[in-house]
């Protein structure tokens, strides 16, 4: 039973179709990897799935129901991690995670600490995000994702800026999430080391005819 389906999605930027008759179906425990050259519409597709962008045509279904930007039930079950981690430069990593997760569920400072340690961000959790490297920021963002109870993860370039250890940490988190019955859609060029049967690939061509 597919939980997340997209049927015949069309999205235009002006006259140019970015997404052309795109369809896919994803079941619990699967990760859809969106591949394609720069400008192929990977980020656009993720934003259409969140409802931040409205597709001109087509429908996205979550558990059989058509979704929309105002669908708070659907939104509560998804977590969106954009290409640029949504962090406040002036706040520390721990504060960022605390406030980001607090919007969506209750969590204690102990939970936040544990999540930051889990993603290898324990050592710099109390430094302002302003002073962190891009890879360190991404780890902090993953701590928030780890604490979130969302079943559907939408990840834009999740492994960018991460070192080898960080990339395998992300794959472990993903694997754990999928094993628990979660779903994920990840836009990335890099291969994701997930166990067999978890990965579904979607190629976007990008070049308009």
């Amino acid at each position, binding site marked *: 039973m597919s939980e997340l389906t997209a049927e015949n999605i069309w999205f235009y930027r002006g006259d140019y179709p970015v997404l052309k008759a795109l369809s896919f179906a994803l079941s619990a425990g699967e990760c859809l990897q969106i591949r394609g050259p720069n400008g192929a519409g990977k980020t656009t597709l993720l934003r259409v799935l969140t409802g931040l962008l409205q597709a001109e045509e087509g429908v996205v279904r979550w558990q059989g129901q058509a979704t929309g930007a105002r669908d708070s039930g659907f939104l509560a079950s998804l977590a969106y991690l954009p290409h640029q981690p949504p962090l406040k430069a002036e706040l520390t990593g721990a504060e960022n995670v605390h406030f980001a997760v607090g919007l969506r*569920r209750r969590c204690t400072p102990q939970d936040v600490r544990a999540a930051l340690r889990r993603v290898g961000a324990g050592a710099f959790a109390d430094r302002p995000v302003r002073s962190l490297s891009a890879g360190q920021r991404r780890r902090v963002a993953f701590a928030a994702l780890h604490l979130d109870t969302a079943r559907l993860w939408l990840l834009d370039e999740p492994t960018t800026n991460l070192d080898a250890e960080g990339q395998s940490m992300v794959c472990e988190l993903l694997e754990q999430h999928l094993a628990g019955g979660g779903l994920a859609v990840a836009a990335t060029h890099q291969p994701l080391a997930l166990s067999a049967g978890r990965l579904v690939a979607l190629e976007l061509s990008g070049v308009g005819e």
Partner: protein
Amino acid sequence: MSAPGVFRVAAWVVQRDLRLATRRPSQVLQPLAFFAVVTLLFPLGYTPELAKLRAIAPGVLWVAALLASMLALESLFREDAEDGTLEQFVVSGQPLTLLLFAKTATHWLMTGLPLTLMAPLVGGALGVPFAALGGILSALVLGTISLSLIGAVGAGLTLASRRGGVLLSLLTLPLAVPVLIFGARATELAIAGDSLTGPLYLLGAVAVLGVTLAPLAAAAAVRIGLE
């Protein structure tokens, strides 16, 4: 897992924005300093005679308050839009109207409220009698609430344009004219020692209208701005 209630989430946003403000106090202090400097320039640039200053005090106070709150508005949503916080608000599944209302309320706590509290200080320099301060303070409280709310709509509408500053002022200032008129009138009556119930009621009406409609309009504008 229990989702937090809406009021808890609103309190969360307020707490976060207050924490952010403590990390960069200059952003809070600049509009206040602007308000003080503009009003205090009048005794220097116009005349030190208190009687003459008293005659222009209502206009000076309100125009300065209007411009100072305009100055502070630029930062209301822009940074949150740039770092992705607003997007996270939209996809959080919480009512965006409420989240933006909480942000606007915090913004008022850091601009409108301190502006109001500075009024006795600058009022003194403009020859405003002590007995009039109570009335002026109540007018400013209501007026600055409206200004923050009107500004939130403008800030939402100008999100999509990179250099929204001037556009924001052009959009917002005409909408703020009623606040300016009623506010200045209330101040004038307070200085004269008359009853200012009429303009205060009107200011209150504008504030109520703003509280009711502005967050809805701002939320709609932000959704469009993020596309």
